[in-house]
Every structure is written in C-alpha cells, then in structure tokens.
C-alpha cells in the first residue's frame, strides 16, 4: 500500500454503500478503494461525510466486505483518461475497456479488476503544431496525431490556468501516449505535456470561446424527425416511450444514419444484447459519408442493467466527458444515452441508502437539477481557434408504466429542445418509427419550409379529428370531403411518417430526398379530388400509397426512382 495515502476502516455495509471511519480528511466525491482480506481492491466514490465517517458508494458487488477492512483514499475525483485511441473502444461505466477485461477474466466480469483505458504501447504518428515560443491556453493544440479519419489534437490540459509558453517540442515521429511531446513554461514553473490527460467526469470541460444558439439541423435521415420534429447540432432531444415502443431501434437508427463526426453510445442500465448488436455489427457497416467502417467514429460506454448500479451513475458522466473531449477537437458529436431513467434509478437507489427524504416516486429532490446539469453539457460552441463544434444529446427515457407524467420524463422535458413521444398504439399498429405526430414537438428549424410543414400538420390534425368523429357517427355519417381529409392524413402517415429501418434504401432518407418527396406529398395534399363514393376514394389512396411506397424503396437518383415517380404522376393525373 502506498504510504502517503490517507486511509480509513469499514464500519458498516448496506448494499453498495460502505461506511468508513477516517482519521485525517476526505474529499467529497474522491475515489476510494476498499481493500478486502483476499487482496481484492474495490473502487468507490465518497458521496457523503458525516462527522468522522464517510459514506462510499462502491462500484462493485460488496459481497464479502467485513467491518474493519482497510480503505484507501486516492485524493482524486472520479476521472477519465483522454487521449488518442478512444474511438472504436468499448468501455464500462468507469472507462475500463471491456475486451481487455474479457482477456483477463473470461466470460464473466471480475470485480476489482481495472485496466488502463488507453493502449500504452501503441505508437501514434505525432506532428508538433505549436513551435517553441508559442503562447498557449488550456485546450489549445500542442500537436496532433491522426486517429482514423480525424486529426486528433493533443491539447494543453484543460485544467492548466493562464498562459503557457512552449519551451520545447519533440520531433515529428511515432510515439506512445505517455511520451512527453512538449514542455511549457509559466513564470518559473515548467510542465511536461504528454498525449494523455485526465479530467474529472462530473465537471464540464469549458475551454471554448462562447456557446452559440443551435441552428443548423442535424440530419438523422429519419423523415419524421428531420421534417417534422428536427434536431439541431448542439441541441438536446429525448425519446420517452413505454417498453416495446421502439426506443432502442430508433437509437440504433440514429447511431448509424446521423450526419455527425463522432457518435458516443452510452448504454446505461439497458439490455446487454442491444450493445452487442452495435459491437458486432458496426465494424461491418460502412459509414456512407466517409466510406469507413461505422465503428471508426463510435465509442461505446456500456454499463448494462446487470452490471453494478453505482457505476451506472458514473457511466453517463463518463460518456458526456468523452463527448466534450472530441468537441474540443472541432468535431460534431452525437451522444445517445439509453436510458436516462436507469441513471435516475441509480440516483434513487443511492438516495434511499443515504436515507434522504424522498421526493416524488422516491426519486431524490435533486433529480431535476442533475438531469438539467447533464443536458446542459450539450451545445454548439466556438472554440479558441474560431472553429465551431457541437455536442447533441439524445436521451432515451423509460417512464414507468409508459406514463409521461412521471418525474424523470417531466424533468427531461423542461430542458430539451425536441420531444419525440413514442407511442405504444403506433407501435402496436406497426407504424414505425412510433413517434407520435401530434404529441411530439421541436423548438428547432426544419429542413423543409415552415409553411409546407404547417399544411401537412393541419391535415394530420384534421384527419385525426375526422377519425375521432367517425368513431361516433360512423363512416356513413361522414361527408366525403371529410373522409378524403382523413384518407390524406393516413396517406402522410403511411408514406412519409412511417419508415422501414430494416430496408437498406428506406432506412436512410437524406435531406435532398426528403425535400423532394415532401414536395410531392404536398402536391397530393393540395389536390382537390372528387370521388363518386368513399370506396373509390379509399381504393385510389391505397393505389397511390402502393406507388409511393415503391418510390420510397427505390434508390435515390436511380432509374427505378424516376419510373416510380412517373407512375405516381400518372395516377395523380388520372384522378379528377
């Protein structure tokens, strides 16, 4: 054991909370290790101090811990390592690389086993960018290495205050991450810069000039989102929905098709099987924007439901910190957190053990501020070098019983810019993605002109009203004009709002194509049809739907695309 570290002794164990008596001092949120009799070291975090006793939430199973076991305080806040080699990795909530753990421990996770997040041996081709004499601030580039398709900036550590003058730089060449690549000086103090730095996960990285209003749309290639409920680069959105409403399929679609530089998938307290799909499939999927494998732009933080609960709380912060790191490089990052409800439940479990006074549904009173604090780490910023970069956060929410009134959903809705309400009725009727077209909302600007969307929306609303009315007065009591409105709204739904995620063509609909298809849709909506009876009206729209679906399934700018369009036009011309 390290002689200089402060220590304590276990006095109580309650679930994953361990009470520790200490003699000298502890720091709130510092990392501590419980040393068991068999030599296992279990990582934990100080979450409360009362008198001479500290409460530690242990990130592992506490089985076998005894009163009197030694505890070591590290003096460091819970931190992550930042450096080249993060992309393509799969980490647990504490940034242990899971494949490395598997090599050491086999099929099952082994508690007390911690591995360096970054490969210490691997050599990176380093190019110095700041010459001797240059004056730098925290977050400014010292040099760079290529990481996949990106220029990975090696930056002056984010917590170095003031201005530093470069006094020495290494020659270009291949080095491992722990190599000192530059030395900088401030007054009489000289410090060494390596390719890796650590950062406490619960503190936002703010080495940028200013935060901007998110305006530019983030293209997800999902029609109902991009057109009706758009998301902006640097914005936030949430996808609450009961189980079975298709949250995860939607998140997967977002992770594959979104037009951003880096995607961070935080699988927080959800099924392990879902992560495995990403893990095993992404290396074989091509990113159409770069021609590289999708995994090259992806980091997976995986703390699935059966992994220790306390680390689940940390995993959300770990993932957003990694996102901030890549934003510092001038990249646009999308963070998909599935699911923030599981994170909130981890807070609740801990709060219960601390015997805090519970709020609604036993969630702690600070739930809202924690949720807000997390989403506020998103944003579009101008970096010190003038370039723009962003983090967009998408949080899946799993409301108990599918009830959006519950505390986590409500706390989330207060702070997000787009609300994609997933509905089980739509999912049951196989209308995917099951985003509800009337309940959802967005505060960002769409890629389709607003007047056109307003028209489509009005039709959807009117169609819904007619449908409600029809349930009361029946089809025979509905005027044919109203009935056509209803058919038009159903038409929008089936050919535009619904999209087949599993079809190679239909699954991704680019911005240009969306505008094109939407224009045609508007043409149908504007057209005044006169049908002799309702049955013929229905038959016509069924035919039109068929042609439209075939159009959606034909590749963009292909011959089949034009042929299908021709058939639609012919059909529209036939109709009087």
């Amino acid at each position, binding site marked *: 054991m390290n002689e200089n570290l402060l220590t304590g002794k276990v006095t109580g164990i309650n679930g994953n909370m361990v009470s520790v008596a200490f003699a000298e001092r502890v720091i709130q949120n510092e990392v501590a290790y419980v040393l068991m009799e068999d030599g296992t070291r279990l990582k934990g975090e100080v979450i409360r101090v009362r008198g001479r006793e500290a409460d530690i939430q242990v990130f592992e199973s506490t089985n076998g811990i005894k009163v009197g076991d030694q505890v070591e305080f590290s003096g460091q806040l819970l931190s992550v390592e930042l450096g080249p080699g993060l992309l393509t990795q799969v980490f647990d909530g504490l940034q242990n690389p899971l494949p490395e753990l598997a090599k050491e421990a086999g099929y*099952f996770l082994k508690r007390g086993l911690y591995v360096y997040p970054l490969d210490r041996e691997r050599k990176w081709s380093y190019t110095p960018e700041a010459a001797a004499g240059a004056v730098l601030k925290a977050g400014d580039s010292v040099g760079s290495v290529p990481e996949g398709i990106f220029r990975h900036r090696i930056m002056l550590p984010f917590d170095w205050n003031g201005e530093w003058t470069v006094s020495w730089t290494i020659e270009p060449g291949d080095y491992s991450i722990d190599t000192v690549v530059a030395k900088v000086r401030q007054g009489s103090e000289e410090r060494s810069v390596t390719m890796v730095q650590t950062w406490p996960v619960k503190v936002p990285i703010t080495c940028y000039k200013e935060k901007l209003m998110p305006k530019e749309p983030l293209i997800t290639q999902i029609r109902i989102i991009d057109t009706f409920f758009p998301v902006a680069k640097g914005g936030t959105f949430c996808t609450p929905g*009961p189980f079975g409403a298709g949250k995860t399929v939607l998140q997967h679609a977002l992770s594959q098709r979104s037009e951003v530089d880096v995607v961070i998938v935080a699988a927080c307290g959800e099924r392990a099987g879902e992560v495995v799909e990403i893990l095993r499939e992404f290396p074989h999927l091509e990113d159409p924007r770069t021609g590289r494998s999708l995994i090259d732009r992806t980091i997976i933080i995986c703390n699935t439901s059966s992994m220790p609960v306390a680390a689940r709380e940390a995993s959300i912060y770990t993932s957003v910190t990694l996102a901030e790191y890549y934003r510092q490089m001038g990249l646009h990052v999308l963070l998909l957190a599935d699911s923030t409800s*599981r994170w909130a439940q981890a807070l609740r479990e801990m709060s219960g053990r601390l015997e805090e006074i519970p709020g609604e549904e036993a969630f702690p009173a600070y739930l809202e501020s924690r949720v807000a604090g997390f989403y506020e780490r998103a944003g579009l910023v101008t970096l010190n070098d003038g370039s723009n970069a962003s983090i967009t956060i998408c949080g899946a929410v799993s409301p108990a019983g599918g009830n959006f009134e519950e505390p986590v959903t409500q706390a989330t809705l207060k702070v997000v810019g787009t609300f994609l309400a997933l509905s089980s009725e739509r999912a049951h009727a196989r209308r995917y993605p099951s985003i509800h077209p009337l309940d959802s909302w967005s505060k960002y600007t769409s890629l389709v002109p607003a007047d056109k969307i307003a028209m489509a929306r009005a039709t959807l609303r009117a169609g819904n009203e007619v449908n409600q009315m029809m349930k009361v007065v029946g089809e025979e009591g509905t005027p044919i004009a109203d009935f056509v409105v209803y058919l038009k709204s159903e038409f929008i739904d089936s050919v535009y709002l619904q999209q087949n995620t599993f079809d190679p063509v239909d699954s991704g609909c680019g911005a240009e194509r969306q505008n094109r298809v939407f224009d045609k849709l508007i043409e149908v909506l504007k057209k005044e049809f006169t049908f002799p009876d309702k049955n013929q009206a229905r038959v016509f729209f069924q035919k039109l739907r068929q042609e439209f679906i075939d159009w959606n399934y034909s590749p963009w700018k292909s011959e089949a695309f034009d042929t299908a369009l021709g058939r639609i036009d012919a059909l529209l011309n036939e109709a009087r």
Partner: protein
Amino acid sequence: MRKIHHRIIQISGNVITVEADNVANNELAEVKSPRGTSLAQVIRIDKSRVFLQVFAGSRGISTDSEVRFLGRPMKVSASDALLGRIFTGNGAPRDGGPALEENLVDIGGPSVNPANRIIPRNMIRTGLPMIDIFNTLVESQKLPIFSVAGEPYNELLARIAMQAEVDMIVLGGMGLKYDDYLYFKDTLDSHGALSRTVMFIHTAADPIVECLLVPDMALAVAEYFATEQGKRVLVLLTDMTNFCDALKEIAITMEQIPSNRGYPGDLYSQLASRYEKAVDFERAGSITILAVTTMPGDDVTHPVPDNTGYITEGQFYLVHGRIEPFGSLSRLKQNVNSQTRQDHRTLMDTMIRLYSEYKESLEKQSMGFRMSEWDNKLLKYGALFESRMMDLSVNIQLEEALDLGWKTLAECFTPTETGIKTDLVKQFWPKDIQQA
C-alpha cells in the same frame, strides 16, 4: 470452529439482528432455534450489528438462539448428478434423494462481460404460428409470458419447453401451487424429459425467503452447464411476480423507502441481474429464459410487469387462452426472420396491420354502424386470422404457417389493398385463389 453467537437484539419480519464481529457481507449463517436449524444470510452490517435474513422465517426464534456463521456465501452444487433431481429453494433435496455437496459454485455471480456476448442467431421453433411467424423465439432470449391468474400460462410454458430443441431444462418454481408443481413434474415425465431437467421448487407453502433464492440457484446451475458443458439450457421461471413480492416483503422489513406501490427502488436492477443471465456464449452453450409474470389486476403498468418489460427482449401476452398479437413482441426476431424466408417479415407486418384494422372495424360494428365493403373484407380476414393463426391448438411448422398466411390474404383482399411491395406479391401471391 467458528464462534457461536447468542445475542439476538432484534427480530423483525424474517430479519434478525445479532451482535457479532468479523462477519462478511452476504455470508451465510446457521440459526438454531427450538423449531430447528435454518440457514440465514447477512444482508446488512452496521458496526457490530449484523442483519440476517432467515430462510425459514423468524417464527420461533428466541433472543438467545444460536447463530453460527459459516464463513462462506450461498452456494449450489453443480454437476451431472443434478439431472433429474428436484430441490427446494435453498438447495435441499425435495425428492428424497441424497443431498449434493460436490463442486459448489457461488450463486448470484457477476454479470457476463458484454464484450463476450454474441448476437443471438438461432431460431427456436415452437410450432405455434403466433410465436414462429409473428414473434420468433430466439436462443438466448429472455422472454416473459404476461398473463393473469386463471390463464393457462404454465401449460403454455410446458408446451414450449417440450417442443423447443434444447439440451436441458432448469425449472425454477416460485410460490407454485402444489398442483402446478405436480403438473410440471408429470408433463416432463410423460415426455421423457425429466432426466434432462433440474428443478428448484418453492411452493406457496414454503418460507418466503427461499422464494428469493430460486432464480439464483436455477441460473447458477444453468450457467455451469452452459459454460462448462456447452449445453443449450432453457430456464423456466414461474412466477416472477411472487419473487418480486418476496423482495418487497424483505425491503419493507428493512425499512427501505418504497418507490412504487411498496416495491423497492432497486426492483429493476434485481430483476435485470437475473434476466441478464440469458446469454449465448461464444464457443460454449447458451441460456434461454422463459418466465411467467402474472399481472395483478391485468394491469401492465403494475411495477412488476412494467420493470420486466423494460428488461426482457419482448413479451408474450396470454389473454383468453391466446397469444395476443398487440403488445406481444420478440425483440430478437429481426436477427432470425430474415433468414427464414424472404416473405417472412413483410407478411408478419402486413397481417398484423390488417388485424389491427379489423379490430377497428369490429369496434364500429359493435357500435351499430353500417359496414362498408372494406369493413366486410376486414371482418372476414379477422375471423380467419384468429382461427388459423391465434388458436393455441394450431401446431404447424413455420413454412406451412407462412403459406397459410398468403392464402388467408388472398381469400380476403386484392394485392393492392394489402400494401405489400410489388415484387413479393409477384412471387408469393397465390394465383389460384379467388376472393369469396
């Protein structure tokens, strides 16, 4: 010889508190009372006060009863000798056979490393069209049957177990009626499956704490056979709602703040740590979990089915003796139904969508509205769908069921009315069937 403690300072519910030193969290102890000896497990330590959950319940324990700590956590014997045997929740023989002590393994072990999982890829055929076509069961899936008391859920569970192609079955019964226990035993026996089955049975009459152990015992055994012997194991758990109620009871005794309808805040994590044991191991066997979750008051938003639904990879709703197409879901079906036959997915989606429209027409009809031509087509379709696809007595292979699906569509609709892609219509639409 370990020290024997006599100072029990608190007895509350099934939890006793004793003053002792050098005790490890989750360690086992033996509690000797005039009623007999019971195992107990440490669930919390506060300085020298140790809280123990007594498996046989606290009734009859006196403040000077003997408590002897065993220095080890709960374990279960894992070997071939288990096959064909029946045990109680704490691992004692229920069938009169010898107690097993060899190769003890920990129960409730750590989670599988997600990096070692593989994408489930093998369909499990059941012969039920509602499962095979619409919600395909996949090896290593975890799937509950949501139902209410009185539905034939145990029969359905037993039928899937008998027809599914697996190497062995581990049955965990929690709060089972004695009749149900005998039913499972007899069914497995009559199909000659008893010799490849291990049962951990907690009946409604047994101490509640033993109920909590059943899933962990069953899954620890399943893990042993899957990893050490490469077996494809099917674990049947019935009824998980009883397990959750046992959790609730302990949590309340421990004065934990309840989160929702009295259930503890960690209900989700507790369920997940069990269900997530379902896994397909690379270079070894697999564990598939089918569980029964009865919904109190037929309410799917009740905390037990609700939390379960968020964990499992889909669910089967058993309503009025049929697997309901709405709400029933197999999240892994996409992994396998693209390789079965190219029309599988489209047919599945189309038939369900039309069935949903049928339900709307049915509603209109029940309100006395005139039925349009389209409504009549849907009504005809709905009736055929229910008798050909939904009835649990139907027992046909997938391919046959798909053909029957096309036949049903062709008898009721024109191809355009179904909205199926043209190329599939060309290939599969039966040409010799006329709409009646």
